[in-house]
């Protein structure tokens, strides 16, 4: 099962990197989101997928049963998903703002902050 999951994660990473290399901001943001999900899946698989029971010590027993899952990676993934959702929301808002202010979301044309004269030209026709 872990082998299959490894391939799934690999495909996710590959697609994410493909999307990151695209020209449009929206595709890049989806790529980043996918990258985060691939990473979440990776953490989830790290504890192994062989656990079948809840990690709760049964009444009368002293230790966890050997079939119990490791709950920690699931807690980590949960945290990472919540953070990822917030960041994804912000990125989408930023992309929207980008289109509203600049009129396009083409990464190749977002170069004004790299050279001096262009920033000045940009701040002259400022839309805020």
């Amino acid at each position: 099962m872990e082998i299959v999951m490894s391939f799934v994660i690999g495909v996710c990473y590959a697609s994410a990197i493909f999307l990151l290399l695209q020209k449009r901001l929206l595709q890049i943001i989806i790529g980043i989101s996918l990258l985060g999900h691939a990473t979440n899946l990776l953490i989830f698989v790290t504890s192994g997928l062989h656990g079948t029971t809840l990690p709760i010590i049964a009444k009368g027993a002293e230790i966890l049963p050997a079939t119990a899952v490791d709950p920690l990676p699931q807690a980590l993934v949960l945290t990472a998903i919540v953070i990822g959702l917030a960041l994804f929301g912000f990125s989408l808002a930023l992309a929207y703002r980008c289109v509203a202010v600049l009129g396009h979301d083409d990464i190749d044309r977002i170069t004004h902050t790299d050279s001096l004269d262009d920033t000045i030209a940009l701040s002259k026709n400022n839309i805020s």
Partner: protein
Amino acid sequence: MNNILILPILVPLLSAALTILVRDNLPLQRRISLIGMLILFITSFFLAAQVLEHDYLVSYIGGWQAPYGIALVADLLAAIMILFAGLIGFSVVLYSLLSCWHEEFSAAFHPLIHFLLMGVCGAFLTGDIFNLYVCFEIILMASFALLTLEGRAEQTEGAVKYVVLNLLSSAIFLAGLGLLYAKTGTLNMADISLIAQQATVNDNAGPIRLAGLLFFISFSVKSAMFPFFFWLPASYHTPSVPVSALFAGLLTKVGVYALIRLYTLMMPGDILNNDLLLTMGVATMLIGVFGAASQMHIRRILSFHIISQIGYIAVGIAINTALSLAAAIFFIIHNMIAKSNLFLVGGIASQAVGSENLYKTGGMWKAWPQLGLIYLISAFALAGFPPLSGFIAKFSIVWAIAEAQLWWVMAAAIFTGLLTLYSMVKIWAELFWKDHPNPEWTFTDSRDNRRLIPVSFLALFAILLGVGGGPLFELCLRAGEQLTDPTHYIQAVLGEAR
């Protein structure tokens, strides 16, 4: 239990919450914000005093013993960093109160600043690697919002680069974390250190090294090392002045702090190749300073200098002796103060002269000599002139390099220092010394000397750290000795049992 450890995280959280509650009353919000920063600064003094007395403070959140629960740990390095983070936060808020009275200044500014400080202090204090990730995300989220607060076109463009590259680095960090957990089964930094050392002895450190390299890439992005620095000069000059001063003082330093923890605690010895960090440090120094030399815009020059200074610190970490680590820590402190102050002074000057483009400025020395004097102090501190703070910082780094007999690194370090001086003098000549390019230009600013309070305060620190830097350097040396021998740290966190 040492409950004081939670305060540097709790105080900014409470200030942030309070400033949100009073967002409709701007004067009150500003007062609360300033008082909150002052309390944080005072708290950090108490924390530092406690750490000086006990060497290590450890607090287990929720009472769960490490390595199972989350531990907050303060050693000397963490205490020093929090102390100066509080200082920078306080000065920046004071500056924003005295200089930014515009309506455009949004009510979200103060809460976000406090959230940022909370993330920064959390990152300095935590002893748990996943907690470090969460703190990084808090810092990122607050900085994203601060960066785009006014929503101007160039801010949006800068933010796109900043957001995409930093999110990428977070994903890499998280992937490394997952792999490390799979191999070691722990998230506690002290425990990771023990397991990594054991693995080196048994010669199967490969998987741990892989996770460590992912951390290394991620932290290098955060601290803007060559070749991962592109987001910094593209975005740091776009937000309002107090925001870029705060970013310059704190954000990259958190990345460097994480690098120190990675190289001295989690992967001690030579598990990660120190020569790699050394080479990258030298490249960072040179590229940063060349970038600065090519710019003609105040905050862009200063942004590139952040990168070049990070190179010095990285070299200090890579040499990995008590002296070089002490030099790196002293350099971080000096850089926080001098760099933030230069951003603030540049902000006041460009506000007064009406432009940040050095082709369109001039005449400031005649118009406002007090400001020029403060600029000179901070700029020469950054360039490393005696008797200012930068001299001790650079001298000790170069001394550590000489002890390690890395002559090519030493040549690069001194050359970089020379070019730093060139850029600082360039700003001086273009902004203060030469006449204004427009002969009809008259100085219309109010020249309100109250605005100079926060910058004089920081300039005073730059002088104090230079003239009376001995005790602080001794402290850094002690911190460096603590870092070179992580066994005490591990013992303090995990107890005698391990």
